[in-house]
């Protein structure tokens, strides 16, 4: 089941510059695990510890916030996951 994960600009250093990556899984969490399997550098970019996203990482599923319990959200074929980094500058 193909799902597209859109990679934030600051994370593309971990995906060989790819802006999006095709993954498989039934939940957001499974999809991110598959992403990390392909690009191990993404683990530290996304997770503070197992199943705990970093506080500055936001997940959007089909352009809608997946908060809370982002990793448990179900996905289906052709869904889009956007990984976004919260900004704090002014």
């Amino acid at each position, binding site marked *: 089941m193909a799902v597209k994960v859109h990679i934030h600009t600051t994370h593309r250093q971990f995906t060989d510059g790819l802006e999006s990556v095709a993954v498989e899984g039934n939940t957001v969490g499974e999809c991110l695990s598959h992403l990390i399997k392909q690009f191990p550098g993404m683990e530290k970019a996304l997770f503070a510890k197992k199943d705990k*996203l970093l506080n500055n990482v936001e997940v959007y599923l089909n352009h809608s916030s997946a908060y809370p319990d982002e990793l448990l959200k179900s996905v289906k074929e052709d869904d889009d996951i*956007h990984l976004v980094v919260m900004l704090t500058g002014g």
Partner: protein
Amino acid sequence: MLTPSERERYDRQILIREFGQEGQGKLKRSRVVIAGAGGLGSPIAFYLTAAGIGMIRIVDHDRVALSNLNRQVLHGEEDVGRKKVDSARAKLRNLNSTVEIQAIAETITEGNVSELVGDCDAIVDAMDNLPTRYVLNRCAIEKNIPFFHGAVNGFEGRVMTVLPGETACLRCMYRGLVPQEKFPVIGVAPAVIGSIQATEVIKYLVGIGKLLTNRLLIYDGLKVTFSEFRLNKNPNCDHCGSSAGKE
């Protein structure tokens, strides 16, 4: 009621069909606080002053540094070392002397935020750190004052508008503290984001258009794309939901 001079000054925006003299009158009677006189605060303050807001209060505790000048266009080389709010007031008065500019050189805290923003019709977030943004967000919710959020990093920025009690607030997706780091930025990013924030404020005060409520707009200057994401009001939010005031 607009004076002949005001009708002349604002002629081009009064010509906008949805705006008119009535819209200009609404701006004239409005009071707006801008939290921060830096990268975001600069375009926000310039465009709201140019548009003819009645009173603008600009709050910033900092002094101008040389490293600010790549993006904080309210300030120039002659202002280095000067209080940012004094520098800002001088530029804004020069732009539009009919707008009352209040310059407050204070740090925004839980203790003074209510006094700083409480009598305003809109609170504009032009801060450079998340903790103060949350202080402003909470106060906006408690006082039922619309809150206009913006933030930048590098060539990127984001904007959202909060109508207390009705829409998702800045805290609705909160998961915990985010480390404060020196952020990279080029001036054109806050120029874009601050201009959108000022647009939102004007639309809200005049009562026209569709606000960026329950929507997060993300701008990528490197690709020149705007992405929009839907936000949900969190019923358990500790600022605007059932958990409010339970800390």
